[in-house]
């Protein structure tokens, strides 16, 4: 095995440029795929945190009598998955609004009557904070008498989810393309190495070298290419991630701070995360698989023993 490694390393050093191009191609593929994976992981986590923070607002018909309100509250509390139900009177609602809009206080001065409806703020139980349970609870609440409208941000959640799915589809397509490109480059490198060593291979065959003695160094070479490409790609991804999340300040920190503050309302209580270790291991194994697959194709095509 040691001599296979020696021969594989010899080939890598003997064809430095070609191997460097292959490693860079694998690294770029890993970087692009990594960016997508990183985006999906964080987008999923963000969506999850938004879903967890969502409360259902049930607005009542104006003039709903007080005794009916407690009945409605009891009905809502009986719906599966609901944890807390809090009544917000129209008076409390306008006070809250005034507090939130202190700079636009003049808007409220000309109001002759409170335009806001009475409402219930409903929070789902931990286990029911998912889209299906939200949809079902909202449907049941809106069917209750005196409930005029139910709102829980379903439209933008749906839009975000659809957008995310679209990104996922394009991510898969891009990932597939990069995978094929990387396999192609590895296959090409191995093919050229086979070509440059064809005399040696023929001689090895004639002296009785086993198939594995001839092929294994090529596989080792391509696995090294894949692993190196994977490590460089993941390293670059980590550098980009640290730069974007502000862990590295490279002189344009102002832009970062402004950008971050613009999105604070969306990102509050949300921490961007790098790839978990199992995904890193998966990507590294994947990049080695790319090397192996490229080598396999080349050997199958050009090294029929």
């Amino acid at each position, binding site marked *: 095995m040691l*001599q296979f490694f020696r021969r594989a390393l010899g080939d890598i050093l003997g064809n430095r440029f070609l191997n460097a191009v292959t490693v860079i191609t694998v690294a770029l593929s890993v970087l692009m795929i990594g960016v997508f994976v990183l985006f999906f992981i964080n987008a999923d986590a963000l969506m999850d945190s938004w879903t967890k923070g969502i409360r259902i607002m049930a607005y009542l018909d104006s003039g709903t009598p007080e005794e009916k309100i407690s009945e409605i509250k009891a009905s809502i509390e009986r719906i599966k998955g609901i944890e807390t139900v809090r009544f917000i009177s129209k008076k409390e609602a306008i006070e809250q609004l005034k507090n939130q809009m202190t700079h636009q206080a003049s808007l409220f001065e000309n109001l002759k009557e409170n335009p806001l409806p009475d409402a219930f703020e409903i929070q789902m139980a931990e286990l029911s904070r998912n889209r299906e349970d939200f949809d079902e609870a909202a449907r049941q609440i809106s069917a209750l008498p005196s409930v005029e409208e139910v709102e829980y941000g379903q439209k933008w959640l749906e839009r975000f989810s659809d957008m995310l799915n679209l990104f996922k589809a394009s991510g898969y397509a891009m990932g597939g393309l990069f995978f094929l490109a990387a396999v192609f480059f590895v296959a090409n490198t191995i093919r050229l190495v086979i070509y440059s060593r064809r005399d*040696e291979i023929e*001689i*090895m065959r*004639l002296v*009785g*070298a086993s198939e594995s003695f001839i092929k294994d160094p090529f596989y080792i070479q391509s696995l090294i290419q894949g692993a190196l490409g994977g490590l460089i790609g993941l390293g670059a991804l980590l550098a980009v991630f640290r730069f974007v999340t502000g862990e590295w300040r490279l002189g344009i920190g102002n832009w970062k701070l402004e950008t971050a503050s613009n999105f604070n309302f969306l990102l509050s209580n949300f921490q961007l995360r790098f790839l978990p270790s199992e995904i890193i291991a998966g990507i590294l194994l994947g990049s080695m698989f790319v090397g192996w697959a490229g080598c396999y194709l080349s050997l199958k095509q050009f090294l029929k*023993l």
Partner: protein
Amino acid sequence: MIDVSFDIYENEFLFITGASGAGKTTLMKLLYLGEPVSEGQIIVEGLNLSRIPRKRIPMLRRKFGIIFQDYKLIHTKNVFDNIAIALEAVGTKSRLVGKKVRSVVRTVGMEGKLKSFPPGLSGGEQQRIAVARAIAGDPRIIIADEPTGSLDAESAKVIFGLLKSFHDRGGTVIIATHDTELIRKTGGRVILLEQGRLQSSTLIPKPA
């Protein structure tokens, strides 16, 4: 090959001769499955080559040391590595490789050229290295296809001397050649081929 049937015995010195295109090289290649056996049977030490699984072909080839007219040395490797790679290929332990290489290089009288590269050697020297590589794996049979075809008379004599000494140590030697002078000087059985057919099998006595 058409209707060719003959036996080769252990420790025999056998010449296969005939005009160019008679089938000498094809016959040699069939012995180590450099060409597939499409019809008939070839049996080497009990192995039927028409039925041998692909995976066992390397084991068959390890029985032979093969020498070519064009030497087939790796030009980018020095003499030591050219022989070492053949030993490594057949699974010789790393610690024995160096010892073995030095020993066979001494046998062919090239001990001063271990670090030389083939393009810097004469044809005769390259063929001596090829012989060293062929005998390095301790084969029982040497197959040599026109081993002296590109050599001057003096170098050819040296190569034949090496093959004869392998034979004297109990090995079997099969040589394809059309050099009748060398056949006459060496002696042994001669198989004559003509257009892929066996014409004759004659025993030439060793010169006194």
